[in-house]
């Protein structure tokens, strides 16, 4: 989403066939044992001889002009080998590029990794040191003298949009507004998506409901902090091991920021301890390289949790106004959304990605979505699992419940009456192809969850979600080994969702060999051509398509070998069930040749067998889901307890069903955390008050009820296995589903996130002040 698909892209039509490997759970997950025994190597586990420890000095101010930096005392400290600040990084002009699902501007990227004119948020890097030990590096940080001129700051998105708000960028004129404003503002850009005639649509409505919602910034919460190890050699080459979702993008960003040739930079992605969109950006990598260049030694940098929270990408906090018009008969005639999104210290929130999701679950003729991208004194936001979409769904799905109640229509029925289906015109451009949204709603209706009895102060909530599947550049090489095994070198980082397993299943299915004969291995940037980052739910869909292409390429090569052995033409050989066979009895009487036999003889008959894919995938299929949740509200404390949760989602085709369910679970749990307690809290100085898991309250296991999952399979017609992305859709509904359940339980509408106990209790007290005294 957000980027236009290439007209030269690759789509492979869905083919219904009997499957042996795809669609069933393999006996074992290939990465599991090394992970649970601690042998898997994450970036922080990798070391080089003679390496130094790098640490970052960060601004304690939310907004301050940096008047001077004096590192001379730090440089004199024994054990300090290099100190860098803004002067050690080249300045960058305005230059846009895609970093995962979000666009970046290199002028801003270089200023995000190291402040130049101003520190723009609490935690903004202002200098970095490399020393022989961590304690020396920390001591050196204290010796760096930074002279700040503290400026007024602005944290809240609504405050930042006010005409008299402190400006982060004095030259920032709002883009996308006609006529061009004369005065600068924190509104970096306005984006509009529309369909039909919104005014006419509201005129046709018998009921119009408009509501305002506010959500707080939230962090992806990956367990593994950012970590990088870098070495820069006298030969002018840089090598980096890092925690990332997309090593090719990291390489491109490093090369751009440090004015190096891409060929001079090699990036190896380590095993990833979670990213969820937050690891598509460079933070430590260029600093480690510059420190290595200056010191002549490898430099390792690992963020603390405090640094992760204060200075790596949260998702936007938002202010959202949703307005929906509907006829008495239950047909939505118009829908409007105003989306005010924090972008953090530089422009570039997730608005271009989430705007298309606003109303796409429903067939609505008249739609207007206006998005404002607003700079404020916070870390630059990055993508977070369906970036920006859960907050819009929070608004839309709770308003859907309100209108259903007002019109006395069942909550599932009103969604079914307006549900998007094949042929529905979206407000962001294309018409929808075959999708499984109605199937998820029907499955919800029939689910036994709907029959469970609710007690006092208990309620049930329903909400839906939609996210598209990204394609983009995808590369893979399949090497058929001499012993009849196959090694797939993949470029789409396995972000711990288990894509390597799915790829192996697909290769095994294509080649007709057992799953355990295939191993999928992560590439570094030198072993494959450019591959886009793992974002937009593209991992299994796009990487899987590349695996198909590479497998079929290798099969052609194997058929060539068979043709040479049999002295027949290539088109007289077919591949079936792991063997080359004569295409018909007319070709001649030949014993089928197995993959292992061909692999062994291939050297003589033309050379090693390998298959390749270097494609731009455009066959991603939209994913839809419906969630059900039961809650119980403690009227005296405002605590919301989840009793039961059900996720129903169209996966197109589940390659590894247990993994698909795990994606459903993981995303929903993140959404539940977002709904209940997670929020960035700032003090009056604009300093983050809760930069740790103790007070940034992600849910713990005992906060989560039993989660049921149901996989719906409506195949994606443009993917050979019908695959749709599954990882992002299930984080979208929980906010709204829980809000709707709280209303069902105790009759209060929660429109301010998070729905934490103090907020719920305050809303209860407001709703019933008379009974509170009793």
């Amino acid at each position, binding site marked *: 989403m957000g980027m236009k698909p290439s007209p030269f892209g690759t789509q492979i039509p869905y083919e219904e066939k009997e499957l042996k490997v795809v669609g069933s759970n393999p006996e074992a997950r290939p990465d599991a044992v090394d992970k649970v025994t601690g042998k898997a190597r994450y970036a922080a586990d990798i070391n080089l001889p003679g390496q130094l420890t790098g640490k970052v000095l960060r601004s304690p101010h939310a907004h301050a002009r940096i008047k001077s930096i004096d590192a001379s005392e730090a440089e004199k400290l*024994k*054990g300090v080998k290099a100190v860098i600040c803004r002067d050690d990084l080249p300045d960058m002009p305005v230059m846009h590029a895609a970093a995962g699902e979000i666009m970046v501007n290199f002028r801003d990227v270089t200023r995000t990794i190291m402040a130049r004119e101003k520190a723009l948020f609490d935690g903004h890097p202002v200098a970095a040191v490399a020393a022989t030990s961590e*304690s*020396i590096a*920390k*001591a050196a940080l204290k010796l760096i003298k930074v002279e700040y001129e503290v400026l007024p700051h602005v944290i809240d998105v609504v405050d930042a949009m006010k005409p008299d708000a402190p400006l982060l960028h004095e030259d920032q004129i709002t883009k996308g507004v006609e006529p061009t404003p004369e005065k600068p503002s924190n509104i970096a850009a306005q984006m509009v998506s529309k369909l039909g005639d919104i005014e006419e649509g509201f005129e046709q409505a018998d009921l119009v409901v408009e509501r305002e919602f506010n959500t707080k910034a939230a962090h992806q919460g990956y367990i593994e902090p950012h970590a990088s190890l870098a070495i820069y050699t006298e030969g002018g080459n840089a090598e980096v091991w890092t925690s990332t979702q997309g090593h090719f993008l990291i390489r491109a960003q490093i090369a751009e920021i440090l004015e190096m040739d891409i060929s001079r930079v090699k990036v190896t992605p380590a095993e990833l301890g979670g990213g969820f969109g937050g690891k598509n950006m460079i933070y430590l990598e260029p600093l480690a390289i510059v420190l290595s260049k200056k010191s002549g030694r490898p430099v390792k940098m690992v963020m*603390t949790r*405090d640094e992760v929270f204060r200075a790596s990408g949260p998702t936007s906090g938002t202010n959202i106004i949703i307005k929906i018009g509907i006829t008495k008969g239950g047909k939505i005639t118009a829908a409007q959304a105003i989306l005010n999104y924090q972008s953090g210290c530089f422009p570039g929130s997730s608005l271009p990605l989430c705007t298309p999701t606003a109303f796409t679950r429903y067939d609505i003729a008249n739609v207007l979505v206006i998005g404002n991208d607003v700079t404020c004194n916070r870390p630059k936001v990055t993508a977070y699992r369906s970036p920006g979409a859960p907050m819009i769904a929070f608004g839309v799905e709770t308003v859907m419940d309100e209108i259903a109640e007002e019109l006395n229509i069942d909550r599932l029925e009103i969604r079914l009456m307006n549900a998007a289906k094949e042929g529905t015109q979206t407000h962001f451009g294309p018409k929808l192809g075959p999708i499984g949204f109605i199937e998820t709603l029907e499955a919800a209706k029939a689910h036994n969850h709907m029959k469970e009895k609710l007690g006092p102060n208990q309620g049930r909530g329903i909400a839906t979600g939609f996210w598209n599947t990204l394609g983009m550049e995808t590369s893979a090489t399949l090497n058929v080994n001499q012993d009849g095994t196959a090694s797939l070198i993949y470029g789409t980082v396995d972000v711990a969702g288990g894509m390597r397993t799915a790829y192996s299943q697909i290769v095994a299915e294509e080649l007709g060999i057992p799953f355990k004969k295939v191993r999928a291995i992560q590439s570094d940037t030198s072993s494959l051509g450019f591959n886009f980052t793992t974002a937009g739910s593209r991992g299994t869909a796009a990487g899987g398509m590349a695996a198909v292409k590479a497998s079929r390429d290798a099969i052609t090569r194997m058929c060539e070998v068979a043709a040479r052995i049999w002295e027949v033409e290539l088109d007289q050989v077919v591949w079936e069930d792991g063997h080359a066979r004569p295409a018909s009895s007319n070709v001649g009487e030949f014993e089928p040749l197995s993959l292992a036999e061909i692999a062994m003889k291939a050297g003589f008959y033309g050379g090693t067998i390998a298959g390749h894919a270097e494609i731009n995938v455009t066959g991603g299929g939209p994913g839809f889901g419906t969630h059900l949740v039961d809650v119980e509200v403690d009227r*005296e*404390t*405002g*605590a919301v307890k989840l009793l039961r949760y059900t996720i129903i989602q169209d996966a197109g085709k589940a390659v590894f069903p247990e993994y698909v369910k795990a994606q459903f679970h993981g995303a929903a749990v993140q959404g539940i955390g977002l709904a*209940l*307690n997670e929020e960035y*809290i700032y003090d009056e100085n604009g300093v983050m*008050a*809760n930069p*740790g898991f*103790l*007070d940034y*309250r992600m*849910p*713990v296991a*005992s*906060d989560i009820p039993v989660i049921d999952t149901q996989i719906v399979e409506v195949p994606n017609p443009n993917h050979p296995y019908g695959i749709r992305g599954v990882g992002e859709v299930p984080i979208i509904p929980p906010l709204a589903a829980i809000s709707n359940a709280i209303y069902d339980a105790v009759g209060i509408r929660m429109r301010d996130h998070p729905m*934490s*106990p*103090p907020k719920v*209790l*305050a809303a209860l007290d407001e709703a019933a002040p008379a009974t509170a005294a009793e």
Partner: protein
Amino acid sequence: MTEMKYEVPTSLDDAVALLADGKGNAKVLAGGTDVLVQMHMDLIEPDLIVDIKNISELRQITKEKDGYRFGAAVSGVELMDHEDFCQTWPGIMDGVSLIGSLQVKGRASVGGNVCNASPAADSVPAMIAAGATATIVGPKGKRDIPVEEIATGPGQTSLEDGEIVVSFFLPNSAPGTGGAYQRFTPRTEMDIAVVGVGISLTLGDDGVCSSAKVALGAVAATALIAEAAAAALVGTKVDKAALDNLAAAASAACKPIDDKRGTKEYRIKVAGVLARRVALIALERALGGKE
């Protein structure tokens, strides 16, 4: 660079001498679940760490004639595994079993919980309500003080340089006594109390409450003794009217702050709610003859 020293004394005298020498920048380490975390977060930079886990007096749980004594470095799990202690002091165990995760409780001690001096410490309100005292040893000798006199403010204690808490003493309670502790946290576990309430109450043969003690956590700079709240129970059968008075008095006693963990209004209100709930548990235990 200065180096940090780590010492593991095996006697109280050695520990006291080391700490007295270390002056203000020495830290006592038992389970380390606060000290090590604070060091990692750069909140403290001690020159000396004195690990007290190898001093036998600090590791024992003993039933004495007049009550129970347990060492300040006894871990939460060691208490949880001590059947008789758990049966005798369910209110204390309500608090101990809420500290961190099971892994954390495997290391964390009540002594550390008390001396870390967080107003939200989960073991403290129930200890205060039960009338617990602490035995302290230092360069000037030994002294016994009520548990509530240790913390003087967030992170601050009345302990002088060289002093350590050796053990806690829980005096035998009168027949018909029940104790309980509950806290409110946004998460179900692995969290810090927004409000904590510990109550101990004693019923006479006629079922009338003859004495009570109410301690509130996380609503002031230190755990508070809410005398008016206790008085609301005394002379009653802990009925609805008494519980209403208890809740109002508990709320009135709060002197909380607004912070990232909760607002003043919220803490005040929930203190009353919890006091009522905790009193009912204490009542049930008193009727069952526990504690």
